[in-house]
Each structure stands twice: as structure tokens, then as C-alpha cells.
């Protein structure tokens, strides 16, 4: 009996340790073997992890308080190995990092040179806007990232997946993320069921950038109140953009840019993301891009693009509001919006005038759907 009580005491002690333990991480901790933190609070105000070959950092059901500063510039770097985070809350504060709204963050929270990533059910938030980006890969190819059902709030750059293949990014919520909320170059990746609110954080940045990518699926995402483009493609082949809702954007809902360094240089923040001195990027051409069943609502403009071959646009609904018929016709005329699209298939697209928001506003044109023609613009009598 006494022995049982003793064991019970030890068991209770272990449980309480695992549930409430506060672990201080000091300096750079190299992870060279599998290491797990579960049900703990990690104080990382002056500590960080570097995961190396053979290392696996697993963190679950924990709270992580990180301070990013010049002496503690990241939360985790993968030189190789793996990072698995499930159901954590990650609170990021900054100290001594300047807000740089118009230039790229130099401080990714998670920096990946190579290795694997599995993030699921985490809440990531940074307290100061325009300072820290969430996750960034480098030039080495990565494969099979799984990033599902997380929230990312107020980062200066969300997920930069450069040379990343077969990534799955689904069910995440991005709020007030400046620069790109999702950036992808690589192939065979899926970006589904994400909610992206205020991409650009009222300053600069698209919701989803697809640059030099092949066989990506961008489906069923909700993008609202973006300050630049909703979905931007430059150098995309075999891309499916299906059943997304893009609303209240300052500019185009979907834009397909002519792939060239010149055009990229003209793009305010792509130029900052893509180009380092003396670096030349070889873009692939835009080809076989399918835009289907999307709802583009109350963005200033709908869909436009530069040079693209085999563009398929079917089953989309465009909702916009124009002050007069000639302006409507101009800004819905594909001869102006898609002047360099070859082999364009444009079928079964509809337009509806948005409801008025001003009080005596007229809704007489807002009740009907009309065909959005392939040429000549939308005409509402």
C-alpha cells in the first residue's frame, strides 16, 4: 500500500511537471537527435533551436514565447532534419528589430535550408507588424511540407516556399500578413481552404504568389481586403485556380504577369524578394493556367494578365461596381485586360453589379447576372 502511494506520488509529480513545466532555452540549442517537448512552456526570450542532420524537433501542445532580436534572430533553423509542431501557441515579440514595411524581413521565425516540416494546429502571432516573417526556405529543394490548420497573424511575410515540391498548405488562416501570405516556387503543391484576411496588412503584399511553379492547385481559398493582388502568377504552368473567393481587394483579384525580370523588377515587392545584386532569374513561361468557378467580388478589378498561353477561364462570377456603363465596359473588356493571352478559352463566366453601399445608392442594375463576354466588355443596359 505504501509502495503504491509512493508510485502515485511520483506519477502525480511527473504529470504536473509535464503539464506546467516552464523550460528556458538559452542561446542556440543544436538538435542532432530526436527531441520532443510536450505540454510545456518554452521561454525562448534568448534562445533558439538549430536542427541538424539526424535531428528531429517535435513540439506539441505547448506555449512558446519567443523574442526575436539581433542576438536571437530566429526561433528555429533547419540545416537539415525535421521540424514537427502540433497544437502549439507561438507568441513572438521583437526587441531591437526595426519595422520595415517596404522591405523584406531579414528575420524568418522558421528558416529552412533543407529538411522536412510538419506544422499542424498551431497559432503563430507576432506582436509588432513589419518585422518578422513566418517561414522561409532557401534555394535547396525541399519536399513534402505539410502545413495545415494553423493561424499566422501579423507576420511580415507568411510562408515563403522557394524550390519546394509537393507541399500541402491547407486550412490555414492568415491575418494581417504583409508581403506575401503564401509564396511558392516549385511543383505539385496544394494550397486549399486557406483564409487570408488583409493580405499586405494595408501596406504591401499579395495573398498568394505563384512564381516559377508547375502543377499547383489553388482551390477554395478565401481572400479578403488585399492591398495588392489576390492571386498572382508569374511563370506558372499547369496551374489550377478553382473555386476561390476573392473580395474587397484594392486591385486585381487574379493577375498573371508576363514572366520576365523586367516585369518582376516593376513589381514593388517581388523586386525586393527575388533579386539580389547580380542574380538573374530564368522564368518559365505561363502556360496551361485554368481559372474556374471562382467568385471575384468587389475587387477594384477582376482578372487580367500579360503573356500567357492556354488560359482557360470558365464558370467564374465577377461582381464589381462601376459608376457608368462605359467604364464598366472598359474594365471588363478582355481585349484590354488579357491582350496577350493566346489559346484563350473563355466560357460561361458571369458578371453581376455589386450592391450599392451608399445610402441613396441605386441597386436597379444589381439584381441580375449577365454574361461576361470573351470580348468587348460587360454591357448592362
Amino acid at each position: 500500500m505504501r509502495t503504491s502511494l509512493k508510485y502515485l506520488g511520483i506519477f502525480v509529480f511527473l504529470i504536473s511537471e509535464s503539464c506546467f513545466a516552464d523550460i528556458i532555452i538559452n542561446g542556440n540549442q543544436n538538435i542532432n537527435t530526436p527531441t520532443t517537448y510536450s505540454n510545456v512552456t518554452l521561454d525562448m526570450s534568448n534562445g533558439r533551436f538549430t536542427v541538424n542532420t539526424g535531428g528531429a524537433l517535435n513540439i506539441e501542445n505547448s506555449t512558446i514565447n519567443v523574442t526575436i532580436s539581433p542576438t536571437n534572430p530566429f526561433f528555429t533553423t533547419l540545416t537539415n532534419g525535421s521540424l514537427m509542431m502540433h497544437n502549439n501557441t507561438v507568441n513572438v515579440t521583437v526587441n531591437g528589430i526595426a519595422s520595415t514595411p517596404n522591405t523584406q524581413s531579414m528575420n524568418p521565425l522558421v528558416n529552412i535550408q533543407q529538411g522536412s516540416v510538419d506544422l499542424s494546429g498551431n497559432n503563430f502571432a507576432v506582436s509588432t507588424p513589419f518585422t518578422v516573417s513566418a517561414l522561409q526556405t532557401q534555394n535547396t529543394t525541399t519536399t513534402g511540407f505539410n502545413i495545415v490548420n494553423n493561424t499566422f497573424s501579423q507576420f511580415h511575410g507568411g510562408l515563403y516556399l522557394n524550390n519546394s515540391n509537393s507541399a500541402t498548405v491547407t486550412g490555414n488562416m492568415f491575418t494581417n500578413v504583409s508581403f506575401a501570405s503564401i509564396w511558392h516556387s516549385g511543383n505539385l503543391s496544394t494550397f486549399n481552404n486557406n483564409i487570408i484576411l488583409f493580405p499586405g496588412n494595408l501596406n504591401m503584399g499579395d495573398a498568394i504568389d505563384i512564381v516559377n511553379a508547375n502543377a499547383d492547385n489553388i482551390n477554395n481559398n478565401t481572400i479578403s481586403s488585399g492591398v495588392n493582388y489576390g492571386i498572382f502568377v508569374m511563370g506558372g504552368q499547369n496551374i489550377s485556380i478553382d473555386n476561390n473567393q476573392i473580395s474587397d481587394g484594392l486591385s486585381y483579384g487574379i493577375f498573371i504577369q508576363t514572366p520576365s525580370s523586367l516585369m518582376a523588377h516593376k513589381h514593388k515587392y517581388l523586386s525586393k524578394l527575388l533579386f539580389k545584386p547580380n542574380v538573374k532569374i530564368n522564368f518559365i513561361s505561363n502556360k496551361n493556367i485554368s481559372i474556374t468557378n471562382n467568385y471575384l467580388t468587389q475587387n477594384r478589378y477582376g482578372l487580367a494578365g500579360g503573356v500567357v498561353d492556354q488560359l482557360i477561364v470558365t464558370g467564374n462570377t465577377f461582381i464589381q461596381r462601376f459608376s457608368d456603363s462605359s467604364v464598366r465596359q472598359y474594365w471588363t473588356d478582355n481585349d484590354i485586360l488579357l491582350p496577350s493571352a493566346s489559346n484563350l478559352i473563355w466560357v460561361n463566366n458571369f458578371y453581376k453589379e455589386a450592391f450599392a453601399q451608399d445610402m441613396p445608392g441605386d441597386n436597379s442594375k444589381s439584381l441580375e447576372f449577365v454574361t461576361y463576354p470573351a470580348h468587348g466588355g460587360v454591357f448592362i443596359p
Partner: protein
Amino acid sequence: MIKRSYFFLLFFIHHCYAETLIINGATQINTHVVYQNVTLDMSHGYFIIAPSGYLEIKDSQINGTIFPDNFYLFNIEGGLRFENNILHLNSVNIIPQPNNITNYFLFHITRGMAKIENNHFFMETPYTVGFFLTDEKYKTTHLFYHNIISQFHGGIFLANSDNTIIKKNTFIKVSLSNILNIKCHNSVLEKNKFLFSGYHTVGDAIDIFQSDAVNIKNNFINSGYCYSIVISDSKNLVIEQNQILGGITYGISIEPFSYVYNRFVDLFTRWHVSLEHINQNENIKIQNNYLAQNRYGITATNVTGLTVMNNVFIQKFGSASDRKFWTNNEILLNNVTQLLWENNKYKEAFSQDISDSNKDAFQFVLFPSTGGVQL
């Protein structure tokens, strides 16, 4: 080897070339009946599922027609499981009545339960046939998961239904109400998408009347022709993380029952719901919602215990005085006691006019509890 190939071939043929079954007239289901991987021709027939019956239809194509003399394609007193089907419906000799409740429904359930998952329902003729209607006499419980419901004249109409889950469905161009609950308890309405609710005429996306403990979470409501969410005479509701966009009027309206009664009087008469009412709402939480480019945001009348927190309102006004007036809770909230209004933000919507200025649209400002928004 040949025998195996033969079986494989047989299996393949059955799956690719589903048998067409013709349902003629009233077909009574008294036992457990399963239709799988078939084409059901219901252009001249319908099912009546008896209390002892349980009908399962899976992986099938259904082509149905509603006539004036048969009100429902599925009249249910037992159980129904409807999974992975495509149903194409039309109506013949039924006059479209955009502004009135229809008497014709695809599913009508008196008692029992329905599980409706992963189907695509398309109604050819608008304003004629509703999707799902319960009676009010028996308590029922249902599951609607991941369906597409298109162009019906009324979506899911539930009376006296408890523990019903309506999740991940897409309602497209459904006129009248898309989801209407009255006297329902412990309902979950989550991750549904409503596009063009009301379809050219009247109709809200979600109506909750005289109900208790309803969670309306993570829904997406775009371009509603009437209100997006209406609450009346209900209590213990949570409305959170919804995105409500582009509606012609209020995003969320909490009203006394006397305000809504006339809008649905035919339906209420059918359900024996009278105008006797308490005219009061209680304990309603509206939090973390995003309401953009609706003409108005939230209005409420007769509420005890209203919490409005962490919502974002995006609207556009022609003048500062209009903005102030239409965001002033002294005008928008009437007879609301125990109001907790915290951390709500306003942003001026981006302009859609090409030549217009966006200078006011790049900032979030506090949406105050009184006095209206001042930029």
C-alpha cells in the same frame, strides 16, 4: 485466371454503367432498402418512407420531377441516408412564386432522421421547390455535411430539431431563407458557404428564431439579397469567425419576433407558430467576425446580454456624417441591455470607382460603442 478477369469485368461494368431504375408513383419504403451506384429515374415517382423504413441511396444519380399533385420527392417518417449522389430536379406546372413560401420540397420529414452527406443537388427551375422541410410535431435530429445545394426556393427549414449539424455545405442562389431554424436547440452551423442568398428576391442566409444554444461559426456569406444572419427570440447563441460580404442590407440583425413573423407567415402557420412571443433575445455573442461591404453592419433590438467583440467592419460611405450615423450604436442598437462592446474595428472599404481616392481606406480605427465611427 479467366474467371477472375470475368469477375473484374462484371464489377467494372456495374460501376461504370449504373443500372437505371424507374420509380413510378408512390413507392413505399417499409424496411431497410439500399440503392447504390444506380440511376434513379424519379420523373414520375416518389418515395414515402414509413416509420419502419430506412432508405439509403449512395453513389447514384437521381433525376426527379415535382408535379402539383406530389409535393415531395422524399416524404420521410423513418430514416434517410443520402450519400455521394447527384440529384437533378425540375418542376412541372408549378408557378414560380419568388416572394412566397412554396408547398413543394425535395425532402419532407415528419419524424425520424436524415443524414445527407457529400451530395450535389441542383434545382432547374427557381422559385418553385424548396430543399428540406421538417414538421414541428416530433423532435428530429439531422446531419447535413458537405453538400452543394443550388437554386432551391428555400434551403434547410427545421422546426423542433435538436442537435442538428449543418457543416461545410455550399448554398448557391437559394431563394427565401437558406437555413431557417425555429424552436431548435444545440445546433451547429459551421463552415457553410452561402452565395447569393435570396437570389434576386427576398431571403436571408441564416434565420434563427425561438432557438437556444446555436453555434454559427466560420461561415462565408457573400452577396446576400437580404439579411445575412437574422436572430429573433433566441438565446445562448454564438456567432463567430464568419465572413459576411457584399450584402444588400444588414450583415447581422437581431430582432423581435413580431418583426419577422410576417415575412414567414405561411411557414409559421404550417408549423402552428403563432405571433405569441416573448420578443426578447438573451445572451448572444458576436465575435471575431469580418463584415465587409455590406450596406450596414449589425443592428439589434430587444436583447439582454449582447457581447460584440473583436469584429471588423468594412464599409464605404459618401460622407463623414453618413458614416457616423450608420455606425452609431445609439441608432443601431435599441433596447439592448448588458451590452459588452469591445475591440471592434472599422476600415473604410477600398473604392471600386476607378477614379476614386482610397486615402481613408488604409487604416483601422476603433468602432466605438457609441457615437459612430470618425475617421
